[in-house]
């Protein structure tokens, strides 16, 4: 097979190879900047539990979150920390997606229900149901004890992971205010992740969607910082909290039964 007597079929094969390679290379460059059609974190979407590693390391500066949408950057999403999105239902339960992102892989996670804090929420007895989790792309088969004890239960991850996504329903966390306008409640908000030596005390941001939030209170913070809610469109979020002081109580009016 010398180069000097190359058959025509070989020349055609070369040209075809170059053309196909060039077309594929152009397509590769075109699609590299595009994102899959996966929706951003949204408790009403099952896609929210997809543990896709955000492609932020290669993307440009964080874009501002549009009003009414859950954050796409910040602790638990693009940097170490915990990000919680909770959507309230008509019965006062919360559908929650909790994302934990850490710098050093962890192999267990300590979970505990949010504990009642302050006046008005003492009657709440939060429990977790429908717990699902993925860690580093793997399904977590270990589930927390039911009911989850107040001092917590530790779940084992299938492999050390830096990205853990949990989805669950938090029930019994709402305490109807008396006397109060119809539908007004105080609700204990997650996270259910608890600090431990492996996890440290990461930053936490809690976002609430659904119903009409009146305000968010962080009773573990100094008095001057306890009104910790910030409104952005229909989404309320807390300031960045340390996990060890991440108790959050929302005062809100629950959605009307039958309302879309």
């Amino acid at each position, binding site marked *: *097979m*010398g*180069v000097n007597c*190359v058959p025509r079929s*070989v020349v055609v*094969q*070369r*040209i*075809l*190879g*170059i053309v*196909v*390679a*060039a*077309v*594929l*290379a152009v*397509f*590769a*460059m075109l*699609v*590299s900047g*595009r*994102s*899959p*059609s*996966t929706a951003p974190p949204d408790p009403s979407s099952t896609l929210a539990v997809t*543990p896709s*590693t955000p*492609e932020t*390391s*290669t993307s440009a500066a964080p874009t501002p979150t549009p009003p009414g949408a859950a954050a796409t950057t910040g602790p638990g999403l693009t940097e170490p920390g915990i990000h919680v999105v909770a959507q309230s239902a008509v019965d006062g339960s919360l559908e929650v997606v909790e994302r934990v992102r850490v710098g*050093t*892989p962890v*192999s267990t996670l300590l979970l505990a229900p949010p504990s009642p804090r302050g006046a008005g929420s003492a009657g709440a007895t939060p429990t977790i149901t429908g717990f699902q989790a993925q*860690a*580093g*792309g*793997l*399904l977590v088969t270990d589930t927390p004890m039911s009911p989850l004890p107040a001092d917590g239960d530790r779940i084992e991850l*299938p*492999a*050390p*992971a*830096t*990205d853990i996504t949990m989805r669950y329903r938090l029930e019994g966390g709402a305490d109807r205010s008396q006397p109060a306008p119809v539908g007004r409640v105080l609700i204990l908000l997650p996270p259910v992740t608890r600090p431990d030596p492996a996890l440290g005390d990461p930053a936490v941001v809690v976002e609430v969607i659904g119903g009409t939030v009146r305000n968010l209170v962080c009773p573990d913070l100094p008095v001057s910082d306890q009104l910790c809610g910030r409104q952005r469109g229909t989404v309320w979020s807390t300031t960045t909290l340390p996990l060890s002081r991440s108790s959050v109580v929302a005062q809100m009016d629950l959605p009307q039964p039958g309302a879309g």
Partner: protein
Amino acid sequence: MTVLVSVVTATGDGQDLFPLFTGVARLLGYLAFVLVIGTTFFLAWLWPKDSVEWVFIRLFYGGAALMLLTTVLVAVLSTSGSWADAFVGRSGATALARLSILALGVGFAWELLGDARRWRIPILIWQLVLIESFIVDSDAWREPWLVVKVLATTGHLAATGAWLGGLLALAAILVPSAHLEVLHDVLPRFSIIAIASVVTLVVTGALHALAVAGSVTALMTSTYGVVLAVKVIVFGVMLLLGNVGRRYAARLAHRKVTEIDESASDQSVRVFAVAVGAEFALATAVLATTAALVHFAPAA
């Protein structure tokens, strides 16, 4: 291909079987990698003749076809059967880039196969770029220790391709007992390549595993570590059986194993072929555990 993906999608829906199918596709992808990289490496550095045997051409084209199929399958299955998302983002771009590099290789198969010794450096660059197309979309391409993991994985894949590809090419000569005279040139060279590959695999494998797991403790206590241990055990058995087989063949041939050629007895050549074949079969098991490791690798 669409039909195949549809069947897999239909079976996978509701049964969470996508990870299994993706793992199988990944295993076949590794075999394709060995066929493509191994055959071209063998022809460029070990094959002593000017003419190329048809069996190597078939191995290369078979590997290229399998790589095309498995690259598309892994991309589609990883997005739960969604063609719209399969070739989007970094994973999709990497898959397309790999197919582009593959197309270039198939286009220049004349030089790649028939004139490999003269085109060693371009072939080496082409092989390295193809290897990187596997690495960019792997757990190696993440901080921390990105550079260490990329270098380790590049060495690991290159050694895998050279060693297993060499074994396959040897089997292709030994099984039909054709052109045994080339063994006189091939075996001493392959022996050096095999030793260098095993050392490289052990060193780079250990480095990569530590970097991916994060610490020795995490490696020892995770599912990833267990699967890695299985891989190491199969790898050890492969080395042991390969060694036993080669020594037996050498005893039958009354000479060193690297000196077996057309003048050796038929029985010793057959035993040597069986030993090489068994070694490659166990290598497939190692590749299967590697496919499983991808599933259990902790995300960075």
